[in-house]
């Protein structure tokens, strides 16, 4: 090899090493941030956990208390939001996958749905404020649930369409050959075959809305006291974390970290569970 060739070879190798080292470094950086966040959550949040944390309502500044009302409000609004959003999403996904795969309407719905999937959640909050809170005259748990439901819909539409499309058409044809009408084929055969996948989608949607703060700011607002009344302002974990973390009181900040840890653990568990479920069903096929 001539010296010019050696030089070229050496330079190519050097460039290669640099690029590879940088991409290792990038991955390490990404993982490091995840561990740093989890570490600070555990360190600052764990001391807040105790019996009071789960059994008392949010305290006044410098008082003793827990997050019971906020935990309850978050659970209820997440549940109602999911209950409203899931059927809408599944029916829309059914239309896209079963009735109209490539019509112009289906293309438009898919396109708009993908946009709604990433649309800023605070704008959804504004929308619900304008159409629900203003006419009703006050903040309410219902308005918060509707805002969350609007966030659930695009996630469920996307996953249920994908999962329904994966069901082999042989199954449908077999059911048709037995004389079943299309609605029975879809409801009794296709839904059953795609059940696990659709459940994954719903779990991911729950994980997404459980920590959402922005859409609740102007809809459910907050309630310092225990309240099971969906027709009035309702406490919720994300809002309490927001309010307490930015307050100057040490006790409030402590509760904010505890709430943050609780919500993160719940969401990560849901996410991992949803992924395991998805893997499990794909192994089975």
């Amino acid at each position, binding site marked *: 090899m001539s010296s010019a060739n050696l030089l070229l070879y050496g330079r190519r190798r050097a460039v290669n090493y640099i690029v590879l080292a940088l991409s290792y470094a990038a991955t390490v950086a990404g993982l490091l941030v995840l561990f740093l*966040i989890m570490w600070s959550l555990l360190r600052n949040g764990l001391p807040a956990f105790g019996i009071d944390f789960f059994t008392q309502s949010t305290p006044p500044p410098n008082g003793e208390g827990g997050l019971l009302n906020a935990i309850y409000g978050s659970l209820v609004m997440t549940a109602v939001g999911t209950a409203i959003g899931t059927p809408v999403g599944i*029916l829309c996904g059914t239309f896209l996958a079963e009735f109209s795969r490539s019509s112009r309407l289906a293309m438009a719905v898919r396109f708009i749905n993908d946009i709604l999937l990433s649309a800023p959640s605070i*704008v959804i909050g504004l929308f619900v404020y304008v159409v629900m809170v203003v006419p009703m005259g006050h903040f309410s748990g219902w308005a918060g649930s509707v805002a969350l439901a609007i966030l659930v819909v695009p996630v469920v539409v996307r996953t249920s369409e994908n999962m329904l499309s994966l069901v082999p058409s042989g199954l449908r044809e077999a059911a048709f050959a037995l004389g079943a009408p299309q609605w029975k084929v879809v409801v009794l055969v296709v839904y059953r075959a795609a059940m696990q996948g659709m459940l994954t989608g719903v779990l991911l949607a729950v994980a997404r809305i459980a920590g959402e703060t922005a859409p609740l700011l102007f809809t459910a607002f907050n309630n310092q006291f225990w309240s099971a009344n969906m027709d009035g302002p309702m406490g919720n974990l994300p809002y309490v974390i927001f309010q307490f973390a930015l307050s100057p009181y040490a006790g409030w900040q402590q509760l904010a970290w505890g709430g943050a840890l609780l919500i993160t653990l719940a969401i990560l568990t849901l996410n991992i569970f949803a992924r395991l479920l998805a893997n499990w069903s794909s192994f089975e096929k």
Partner: protein
Amino acid sequence: MRRQRLGDTLFRAVTRGFALGVLLLLGAIIASLVSGSIPAFREFGPSFLISTAWNPVKENFGALPAIYGTLVTSLLAMMLAVPIAFGIAIFLTELCPPLLRRPIGTLIELLAAIPSIIYGIWGLFVLAPVLQSVVQPALIGSLGEIPLLGVLFAGPPLGLGILTASIILAVMVLPFIASVSRDVFLTVPPLLRESAYGMGATTSEVIRDIIIPHSRAGIVGGVMLGLGRALGETMAVTFVIGNAHHIKASLLAPGTTISATLANEFTEAVSTLYTSSLIALGLILFVITLIVLAMANYMLWRMGSREEA
């Protein structure tokens, strides 16, 4: 038989109705924001977009500082996140041992699952103090001394401000860009990749000459998707941006974004004009993100249709 056929028609009509509902939802969001922002635009006219005023007492509002903050933090976040996200995508597709591919990919994706508010509290209590005591003084001491460029790093190290918000945003959009890039990198036919390796190309040459040209549309789509997320991100930014309605050249200075302004001030706005100005800000944000996300999805869709062809 007739009852079954009626069932079919009904079922089809219902699903079609909900599909139309999704379309109508977008229209309803735009319509409600437009109607809510009419008082503000009637009062201030188009100069609302270029005015830097923000005075709730005198009821004089302008959107420019918030628009500026939104765009600057998002663009800076992209500059930080895109190279790292590509590094991760390259690692996951080209370098990672197959056994670790899934766990590491999942861990990176879990970053996207962490709610915005957690990034906010972490940014405020953990990241900002470090930036204030270590990183920002170093920046002021080094880059701040350079003429022209120094303007960007002028002023005291406050810890909270445009730069802190951009870093937090970068971490938040990282997993989106990384996982979209990984997915489009994986669409490169193995034959192409292996032919290049067979001709003696190094990994970095395969990436530059085969993988990136082949997946360009998808990469641009993924980056735009990340940008769309960054523009509308609310809680994390609200914690660390400093919430000041002015435009400063320095990246270390506090600023505000549209979403942070809404989160901070909406429930405190008492007058119609104040509320309406905030809704108008929301409308501007929605229009900007709609355009970015529509372009992103178009790029990804083009990529997808080529894949099938």
